[in-house]
């Protein structure tokens, strides 16, 4: 630093003597002493020059705190400039010299009484910046006076000072009643004072989320709106941000606020514009969509957003990040403005990438030709990141706009012909996604792709290529050679490639078993024996076991139809989006993260939600858009006899016949196997929205690679796949039993029907194990022994996992408790009602039959918590006719209690939203056969009637699920 300063001065030898650079010339050794002498000089001018030198040193980060007493001595002066300079110094160093700082107090107090308002304001302002407790005590009286000063300049400065003081000592501010004074200032006659009071209050409120400090009511709102027109641009930002927190009483009020805020859209300051956009976006929710004004407002929003894009690049960037949110929420606003997002070659890269993202969001059939032409153009640019993203964007277009798919594919092929390495690799990654979206349509290009096999050196591209080879092994003559070539360096590959290779070879084997046995052996042993990677080993074992137990089943599992990938995989999940819309213009909106998630130490951020107009419970509000473009054939909920499920599970998984309760591993294994067939299948087969290493068929690329901000989602969701695998191997481990509702035992078999044997019982799910708990009561005169139990085929394949353990005979009038672990791998037949179970019990006397009904929650898996995004996609994907709605009457729990209770039965709440006092819980559960049930539970405070909507690919289960809800909630 020293050298630099000297050099700086040398460079400026020719410079004028009048410049401040001369102050740097003294920054050499011993200077502190020199400065000390100068500061204590009698000559005013010399003092001032000395202080300037001190300040100059400060600006370059030099420590001049040792001069504290000398500088403070210069404070008592009538020279305003000198005073200001000393104050500047004080603010910087008071904290490190608290005892010295106290020396300044008297001058401060005196200055607060000065005749010149500028000096009064300066003093109160500086005092507030000195974060020393001792000083704050002295600050109170002067501050109180300044808050009521006749001069508005002093009042507005004092308003800010309250916020500063509050940050140092909140209690003091409250005790002294400053908060009330501050609130009074909202009604001040001067708009600048109002703006600063609002800013100060908002800041204080941020640290006291529930303080209700900014008690917004129609009167204060009116004052704010009046001040909005008159105060400075910065004040307008504070006021608008404050307005955004208000919830209008009705659509009328909403509209009138919107009308008064709209002129701000024409402000030259982009921060004002964006804050106004936030208010409008939020209050618009209240307006009925059929209102003329609603349409007018939509139209008014487009031009200012477009204008933001002609500002400086940094402003553009922030604007683009926000526009990204806005187009997700209300695509109609900018749907005709595609062209403003076209990329110019000299845009900074961060602007280019954002523009590209928005282009894809706005892409539609109407403009796809233009978009594609642009993307092709971009794919030949210089910047590698940008080119890659452009190539991926072409893939996204293909998936989003079906009509364009063919064109996209041919564009991608053109790009592959350029042989630019990274372009080829990106193209292959996206082509794989296109294959998944449109199976059996574009496979003719495979040959071209194979030509570039050698040049692929990125794991993602290699994995994609391997997937393609595996998936279409039957059409590629030398598929085995191709895959074998990858196998050579198996251990050097990344996990992604290894997993993909494993799956691809298994696929190949299942398709061409005769020639590839050796290959599959090789890969299985590489994966299971030579690898340290648990994911790889686990997957290897699953395949191995599947292949060795039943190749037919393996075929069904491995070559099962994959879930389709949806068009928009990087959409922000709706509750987060709503929250972010309420935070337009903030850092949260730039990072697309909930505000609570990232600002350090933010003290209890309030979650903001959009409130919608009462009358319109329509599409935007609910995750159901009714426009599910693709819907895969719903899997038959209850497979008919002898189909895949039965076939596979009738394998050798018969319950062990050992005495004593069966080891936990056995049902675990079975459940895991079930898992493979059902929901687990989705995840194993690669649900594109899951950025897990373990994707077999799908690519996480589209979702994860597409500029999705890191850690955008809270990490608390259990990804189904890991859940599934965990289940498979340590299901016996401590599961959650807390709060599980266990129905009381009821009499299943009355004594009179069973020659004196009375059986009452219930079902329990503990740690993932279903048990039938029974009390057997001997009401006959003779001893009963030799008990055995059998189930009839039933809807979910429930079967005893072991023999009924009643080791001692039951004497007359004796009763005995028995717990029978159940598996869900028994033969399947649809029952009426669905949860009906027919049981046969045998003893030394006779065989008795009874039927009972189990709560369907017995079948809800512990890993039934769906990931938010998957939930959203699935909800959309399930056709509307599969939705059923029920009322649950007379339930007096609040939503949180309900959610907790339900969780005990493996009904997981994924998200909660509050709309006008109505809590909406989004919940998921997963049945043992892999069927997912999605629910939306609406709880209105004070209303004992809940509404529940259930969506499931197998709507037959809805009735049962609803009954289960009712039982759990009411007990």
């Amino acid at each position, binding site marked *: 630093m020293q050298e630099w300063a000297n050099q700086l001065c040398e460079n*400026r030898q020719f410079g*004028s003597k*009048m*410049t*401040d*650079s001369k*102050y*740097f010339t003294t920054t050499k050794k011993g200077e502190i002493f020199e400065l000390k002498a100068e500061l204590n000089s009698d000559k005013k*001018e010399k003092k001032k020059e000395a202080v300037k030198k001190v*300040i*100059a040193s400060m*600006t*370059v*980060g030099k420590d001049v705190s040792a001069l504290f007493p000398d500088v403070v001595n210069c404070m008592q002066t009538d020279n*305003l400039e000198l005073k200001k300079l000393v104050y*500047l110094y004080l603010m*910087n160093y008071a904290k490190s010299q608290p005892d010295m700082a106290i020396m300044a107090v008297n001058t401060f107090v005196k200055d607060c009484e000065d005749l*010149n308002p*500028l000096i009064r304001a300066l003093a109160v302002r500086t005092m*507030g910046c000195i*974060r*020393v407790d*001792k000083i704050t005590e002295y600050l109170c009286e002067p501050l109180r006076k300044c808050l009521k000063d006749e001069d508005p*300049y002093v009042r507005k*400065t004092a308003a*800010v000072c309250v916020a*500063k003081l509050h*940050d140092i000592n909140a209690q003091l501010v409250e005790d002294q009643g400053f908060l009330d004074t501050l609130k009074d200032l909202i009604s001040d006659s001067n*708009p*600048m004072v109002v703006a600063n009071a609002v*800013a100060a209050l908002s*800041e204080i409120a941020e640290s006291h989320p529930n303080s209700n400090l900014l008690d917004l009511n129609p009167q204060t709102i009116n004052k704010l709106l009046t001040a909005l027109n008159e105060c*400075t641009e*910065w004040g307008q930002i504070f006021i608008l*941000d404050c307005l955004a927190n208000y919830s209008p009483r009705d659509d009328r009020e909403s509209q009138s606020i919107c009308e008064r805020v709209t002129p701000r859209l024409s*402000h*030259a300051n*982009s*921060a004002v514009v964006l804050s106004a956009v936030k208010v409008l976006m939020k209050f618009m929710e209240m307006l009925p969509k059929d209102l003329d004004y609603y349409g007018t407002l939509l139209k008014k929003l487009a*031009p200012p957003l477009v204008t933001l894009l*002609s500002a400086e690049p*940094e*402003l553009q*960037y*922030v*604007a683009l990040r926000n526009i990204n949110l806005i187009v997700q929420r209300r695509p109609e606003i900018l749907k005709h403005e595609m062209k403003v997002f076209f990329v*110019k070659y*000299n845009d*900074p890269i*961060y602007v280019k990438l954002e523009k590209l993202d928005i282009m894809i969001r706005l892409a539609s059939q109407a403009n796809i030709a233009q978009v594609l032409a*642009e993307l092709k*153009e971009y794919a*030949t640019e210089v910047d590698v990141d940008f080119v890659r993203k452009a190539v991926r964007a072409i893939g996204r277009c293909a998936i989003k706009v079906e009509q364009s798919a063919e064109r996209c594919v041919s564009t991608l092929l053109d790009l592959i012909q*350029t042989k630019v390495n990274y372009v080829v690799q990106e193209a292959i990654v996206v082509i794989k996604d296109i294959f998944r979206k449109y199976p059996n349509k574009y496979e003719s290009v495979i040959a071209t792709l194979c030509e570039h096999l050698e040049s692929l050196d990125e794991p993602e591209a290699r994995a994609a290529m391997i997937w393609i080879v595996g998936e279409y092994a039957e059409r590629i003559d030398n598929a085995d050679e191709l895959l074998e070539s990858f196998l050579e360096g198996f251990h050097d590959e990344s996990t992604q490639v290894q997993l993909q290779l494993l799956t691809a070879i298994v696929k190949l084997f299942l398709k061409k078993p005769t020639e590839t046995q050796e290959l599959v052996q090789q890969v299985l042993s590489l994966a299971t024996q030579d690898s340290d990677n648990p994911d790889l080993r686990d997957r290897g074992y699953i395949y191995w076991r599947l292949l060795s137990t039943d190749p037919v089943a393996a075929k069904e599992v491995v070559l099962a139809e994959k879930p389709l990938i949806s068009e928009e995989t990087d959409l922000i999940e709706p509750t987060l989006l709503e929250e972010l819309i309420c935070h337009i213009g903030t*850092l*949260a909106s730039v990072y697309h993260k909930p505000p609570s998630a*990232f600002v*350090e*130490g*933010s003290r209890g951020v309030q979650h903001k939600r959009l409130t919608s107009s009462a009358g319109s419970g329509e599409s935007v509000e609910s995750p159901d858009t009714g426009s599910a473009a693709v819907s895969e054939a719903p899997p038959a909920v209850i497979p008919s006899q002898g189909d895949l499920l039965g076939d596979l599970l009738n394998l050798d998984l018969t319950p062990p016949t050992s005495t004593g309760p069966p080891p936990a591993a056995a049902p675990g294994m079975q459940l895991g196997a079930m898992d493979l067939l059902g929901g687990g299948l989705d995840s194993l087969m690669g649900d594109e929205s899951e950025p897990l290493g373990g994707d077999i068929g799908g690519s996480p690329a589209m979702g994860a690679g597409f500029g999705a901000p890191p850690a955008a989602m809270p990490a608390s969701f259990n990804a189904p796949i890991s859940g599934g695998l965990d289940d498979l191997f340590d299901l016996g481990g401590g599961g959650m039993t807390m709060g599980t509702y266990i129905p009381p035992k009821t009499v299943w078999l009355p004594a009179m029907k069973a020659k004196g044997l009375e059986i009452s019982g219930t079902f329990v799910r503990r740690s993932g194990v279903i048990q039938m708990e029974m009390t057997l009561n001997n009401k006959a005169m003779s001893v009963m022994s030799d008990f055995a139990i059998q189930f009839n085929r039933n809807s979910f394949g429930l079967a005893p996992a072991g023999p009924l353990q009643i080791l001692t005979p039951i004497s007359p009038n004796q009763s005995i408790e028995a717990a029978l672990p159940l598996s869900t791998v028994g033969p399947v037949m649809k029952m009426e009602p669905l949860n009906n179970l027919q049981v046969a019990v045998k003893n030394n006397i006779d065989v008795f039959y009874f039927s009972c009904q189990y709560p369907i929650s017995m079948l809800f898996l512990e890993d039934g918590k769906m990931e938010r995004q998957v939930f959203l996609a699935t909800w959309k994907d399930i056709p509307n006719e599969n939705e059923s709605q029920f009322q649950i009457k007379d339930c007096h729990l609040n939503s949180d209690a309900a959610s907790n209770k339900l969780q005990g039965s493996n009904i997981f709440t994924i998200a909660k939203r509050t709309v006008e006092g109505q809590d909406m819980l989004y919940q998921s559960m997963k049945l043992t056969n892999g069927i997912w049930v999605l629910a939306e539970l609406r709880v209105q405070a004070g209303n004992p009637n809940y509404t529940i909507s259930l969506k499931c690919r197998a709507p037959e289960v809805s009735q049962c699920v609803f009954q289960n809800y009712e039982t759990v909630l009411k007990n």
Partner: protein
Amino acid sequence: MDSCHTENNSRAEMIHSLFLINHAGDIFLEKHWKSVISRSVCDYFFEAKEKAVEPENVPPVLQTPHHYLISIYRDKLFFLSVVQTEVPPLFVIEFLHRVADTIQDYFGECSESLINDNVVTVYELLEEMLDNGFPLATESNVLKEMIRPPTILRSVVNTLTGSSNVGDKLPSGQLSSIPWRRAGVKYTNNEAYFDVIEEIDAIVDKSGTTVFAEIQGVIEASVRLTGMPDLSMTFMNPSLLDDVSFHPCVRFKRWESERALSFIPPDGNFTLMNYHVSSQNLVTIPVYVKQNICFFETGPCGRLDITIGPKQTMGKTVEALMVTIHMPKAVLSANLTATQGNYSYDLATKVLVWDIGKLNPQKLPNLRGSLSLQSGAPKPEDNPSLNIDLKIQQVAISGLKVSRLEMNGEKYKPFKGVKYLTKAGNFQVRT
């Protein structure tokens, strides 16, 4: 005693600190509005700067474990602010630009050497502009009353007399409802001049089709009028202006109801209005470009042939015509002939500039010849884009025209004038 108030609860202010950093990455000024934050916080920024290669590409918002760094890059300087709380980033960026504007306004240029020459004044300005993260005074009129801009004369006088360059009175405009204008303005010559400047932003593809075109318009004002003049400006065709943003002085209601700009102007130079014309049919493209740039598969060379002609110039002459091409890296030299103007090729930056001057519709300028490539280099993958610069005097290409300018509130007769100018903004032709 004060130890209970540690760093982690001092998060009140919006903008915590400001660092000014030069092109080379040296911090040459720091200002803290509360506690001092170590300049090591900038290391995250330097890391990003390193990664971005070009300074223009440094992301404007960076996250560090404890802070957010929000920066702008202007005049080859980075203005880097450190924030700790949730702050609207646009607010910070706008403010930083305002700081740069103020420095420019005070010292004539925003450069490291000028800032160092005036470091104390800059420091005082920064203090005046922000209090606890709240902008205090950002209007140049107000600031200049609080802290006088340096003039050679005043520096000399100040040195001789020891008087100060800090105003000791509360600025008159600071709290009035027209904070942008100070009271008691006096001129012997009263004048109000307006420049309507339009920039054409366009992307034209290789076939000559306009992919995208829009006009960024601005009305710059230079008003030196005595007292409190109240001006109103009307247009022949205000319907063009459906996307506008105004200086705070413009009365929005009057605009909404009458489509007239009514305002009490700030004293001096200011931007009265920005507007944006994006409707394609209103945006005319003044010139066409016929170009052919190609590189041969065999041999290290390529050809270039560019001709420019007038398209829609509204009867005016196109001047200051210039073509800039960022050539692919492999291009070593250009051996070209220009029928008009001069060309130069900068080997270091790979930028070819052809400075044409006036466009003569009778004899169209042409530049043609060969490009030589680094031997052994593969054929360049990227096609260079052409950037066109041009000017057309006395016309606003959108057709916007001022019809009247009136003054109320004062008795004297001012000189009034409106000039029009059309320029190329970001005008790109793809090849």
